[in-house]
């Protein structure tokens, strides 16, 4: 029902009968449901329940939320895209809108597709535009039903769960599975809490809303494996990737949307015998992590845009001293405090070039929630292998949205990293000209009796400070070549679609889903459009030019500004690297994920220009 597939639409009652006895049931492949209310209404938890349910029903799911940057209160939305087919984006337009207040209604009616369904709370929404775009309006006293169901002093708390019951009824979702999830969530808070939640749920579940909608919808379960799917958000997936990759120590400073990673590491690491330290500022955070790395551990620090800027001096130290360090940057809207709770991809250049001096480092970007886990694991491997800083460039959208994915095969992934305190031979050198850097952490006996001092001054292969012009050139080359070598093991990105044609869409980071969906849609329309996704943004994979050469128009889609010279950040890099004039940009900075139609419009503009 969403943009990906072309199944039944809700207002078209005779389309695609599900084969059930109830002929008013309409079978759906996909549904985009938006809940609009205030942040204290718990609408995120409706979304979280639906996402978990999806994972348990072999459905695909992707969520999208906005939270106000105020401490409590303020308008908030949660959008859930459920589907039995592939779900690649949170959905351009909603099929259903649940509006809790007049402002929710006024602000989000335009997010509904033509002929969509708006269910609103008659206790709060008074003015509705019944004749707009064929939208079916259904008014329910959501607040009073909840108050009546729970009674007592709960006031309207619980209306989120009531709405969940409503949704379960409309979409024929399993009451049994949902009540298990509700029990899991509320059970430990006491029996009363769980009972009230179920009272609210059943009030919604039993409400005869089907009559108003002239029938229910049957959101099909997926046909894939029902076992092993888990649902979580990007920051959580990334954190467990770090733990699986062997990170046991780290430090950070609170900043949205990075904080949930540090909070989780802080409470998880002690169970692994490790420690995460909350530092007094970003400079201390990166320095604590550097100290842990110097001490022989695989250490992590992280932040969001402004905090990454503060860490830059230390990051170039890590390059110079060749110490392994993982840095997570959860991008948000900038510059400065900018849009702290919105998505943007404007830290790419900062991540690659942000420090003083020539300080090459590795930058990788996850494409979806699942990939957050694997990118974190890979960052751990790369940091150890190349003894250098590795930046994970994720973003606000990935950080907070929920997706369902197959449980990773932990047996083949989880590693333990211990400090190597073995005795170093007399001829040991930390920076052999032709070999890999192997740091000797304090505690390692030195057979030759000479101990190393790690330094940020230019130094020779034994780590001795040196101002010699020859040494500086040689060591700069060493640090550069080391990072270039990383590219030898990076696979070329797979082309989605034909290997040659008119248009190649190029993306990186969280735009993967919308780009893939746009590509598939364009291909359905018979257009010659393919796409690739760049996961390793620095260094780039070897041979990307061979892909680019097969297309007439190369459109780099990214959520950052076109800059002074008309190109986004990755497009600028690719143009500089490959000198291919067919590379151009489709950029935007509205703080929102790319819509499919925006990408399609961007390709069209190019087609017009090149034809």
């Amino acid at each position, binding site marked *: 029902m969403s943009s990906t597939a072309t199944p039944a639409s809700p207002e078209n009652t005779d389309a695609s009968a599900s084969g059930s006895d109830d002929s008013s049931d309409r079978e759906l492949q996909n549904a985009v449901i938006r809940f609009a209310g205030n942040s204290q209404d718990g609408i995120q938890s409706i979304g979280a329940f639906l996402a978990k349910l999806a994972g348990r029903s072999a459905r695909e799911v992707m969520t999208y939320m906005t939270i106000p940057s105020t401490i409590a209160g303020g308008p908030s939305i949660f959008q859930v895209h459920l589907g039995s087919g592939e779900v690649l984006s949170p959905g351009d337009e909603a099929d259903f809108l649940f509006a809790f207040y007049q402002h929710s209604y006024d602000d989000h009616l335009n997010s509904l597709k033509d002929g969509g369904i708006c269910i609103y709370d008659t206790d709060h929404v008074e003015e509705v535009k019944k004749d707009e775009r064929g939208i079916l309006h259904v008014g329910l006293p959501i607040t009073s039903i909840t108050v009546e169901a729970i009674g007592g002093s709960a006031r309207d708390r619980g209306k989120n769960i009531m709405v969940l019951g409503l949704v379960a009824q409309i979409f024929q979702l399993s009451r049994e599975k949902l009540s298990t999830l509700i029990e899991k969530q509320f059970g430990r808070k006491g029996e009363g809490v769980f009972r009230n939640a179920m009272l609210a749920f059943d009030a919604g579940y039993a409400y005869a809303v089907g009559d108003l909608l002239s029938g229910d919808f049957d959101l099909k379960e997926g046909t894939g494996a029902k076992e092993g799917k888990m649902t979580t958000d990007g920051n959580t997936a990334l954190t467990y990737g770090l733990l699986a990759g062997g990170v046991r120590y780290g430090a950070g400073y609170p900043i949205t949307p990075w904080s949930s990673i540090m909070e989780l590491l802080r409470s998880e690491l*002690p169970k692994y015998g490790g*420690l995460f330290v909350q530092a007094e500022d970003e400079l201390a955070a990166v320095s604590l992590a550097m100290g842990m790395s110097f001490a022989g*551990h695989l250490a992590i620090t992280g932040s969001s845009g402004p905090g990454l800027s503060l860490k830059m001096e230390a990051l170039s130290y890590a390059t110079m001293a060749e110490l392994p360090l993982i840095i997570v940057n959860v991008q948000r809207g900038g510059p400065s405090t900018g849009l702290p709770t919105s998505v943007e991809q404007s830290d790419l250049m900062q991540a690659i070039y942000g420090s003083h001096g020539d300080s090459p480092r590795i930058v990788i970007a996850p494409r979806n929630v699942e990939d957050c886990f694997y990118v974190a694991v890979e960052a751990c491997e790369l940091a150890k292998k190349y003894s250098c800083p590795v930046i994970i460039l994720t973003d606000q959208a990935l950080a907070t949205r929920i997706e369902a994915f197959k449980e990773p095969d932990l047996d083949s992934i989880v590693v333990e990293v211990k400090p190597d305190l073995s005795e170093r031979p007399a001829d040991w050198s930390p920076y052999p000209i032709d070999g890999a850097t192997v740091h000797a952490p304090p505690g390692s006996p030195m057979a030759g009796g000479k101990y190393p001092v790690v330094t940020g001054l230019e130094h020779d292969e034994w780590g001795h400070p040196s101002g010699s012009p020859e040494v500086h050139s040689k060591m700069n080359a060493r640090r550069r070549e080391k990072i270039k070598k990383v590219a030898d093991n990076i696979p070329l990105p797979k082309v989605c679609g034909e290997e040659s044609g008119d248009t190649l869409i190029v993306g990186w980071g969280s735009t993967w889903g919308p780009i893939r969906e746009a590509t598939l849609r364009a291909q359905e329309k018979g257009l010659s459009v393919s796409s690739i996704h760049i996961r390793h943004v620095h260094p780039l994979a070897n041979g990307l030019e061979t892909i680019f050469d097969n297309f007439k128009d190369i459109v780099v889609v990214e959520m950052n500004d076109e800059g002074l010279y008309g190109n986004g950040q990755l497009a600028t890099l690719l143009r500089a690297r490959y000198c291919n004039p067919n590379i151009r940009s489709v950029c935007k900075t509205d703080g929102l994920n790319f819509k499919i139609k925006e990408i399609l419009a961007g390709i069209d503009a190019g087609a017009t220009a090149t034809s």
Partner: protein
Amino acid sequence: MSAIVEAPEPKKLTKKMLTADHPTWCPGCGDFAVLAAFFKVLEKLQIPHEKICTIAGIGCSSRFPYFVNGHGIHYIHGRALPLASGVSLSRPDLHVFAFGGDGDGYSIGGNHLDHAARKNVNLTYVVMDNFVYGLTKKQTSPTSPVGYKSKTDPMGAVDQPINPMTKLVNGGATFVARTHATQVKHMMEVFQRAIEHPGFSVVEVLSECIIFYPGAFDEGNPRKGGEFNLIEEKQWDDTPEDEARHDVTNKSDAYAIACEEFPGRFGVFLEHDRPTKNQLEQRWIDSSMEKVGDATPKDLIAQRFEGMK
């Protein structure tokens, strides 16, 4: 924390083994005496050679790690303490020493000093305070007195200087002492007590820059006509004289001494026990690991994933 394999018993540590490159300090610099005193104390305490870890930021005195033959790290300006905290908190088996000057410690790194102190991270920090920026050649430092003429204050410094001693006492450091680079015996005594103290121990050393601020500390040097007045510590011997002596566990008395006019007094201002951050975190780690039992990291992650289904 992670199990660390203990190294075999090392041979006896000598000053010769600890000596590295000849310091690049100017002849006559006070820091030479600090280095010599440090060697002698290490020799006396027989700390295993490979467990010695010296850490510094940027400045003349921050070159210290190069002159000690031991594991060391010469880090960026002002951030020696957070780096040293990272080493101390993740490697309880090491002896962590941070060195630096007044610019590194009280100006660009001033915030970190307060936080390392309040957290009571287990390490020893020696500040070679010379009241001037030496490496960058004579700019006003946070401890330069009002009226001091420098390249950035040609008419004389106008900003009130930081009093490191009140800052340290107030910040929550559990061992705070002050000494003078010309008083090597005193310096050694204080260093030893600082090293043996569990927690964040700081020694402020008046260490003269003979190029840019000669004579800065003559008032504390008897050979230059000054007075090296010591803090008399309580002996707890029930004598009438003991009444007047300083109780090193008393923070407000320490603060009062810290407020005395320059050159003030030397010795231990404060020495009291408070659980270190290392101990408090280890307590949490131990109880967490006890709850976890035999579960491996893989089991722990798998358990979490189960809850996400």
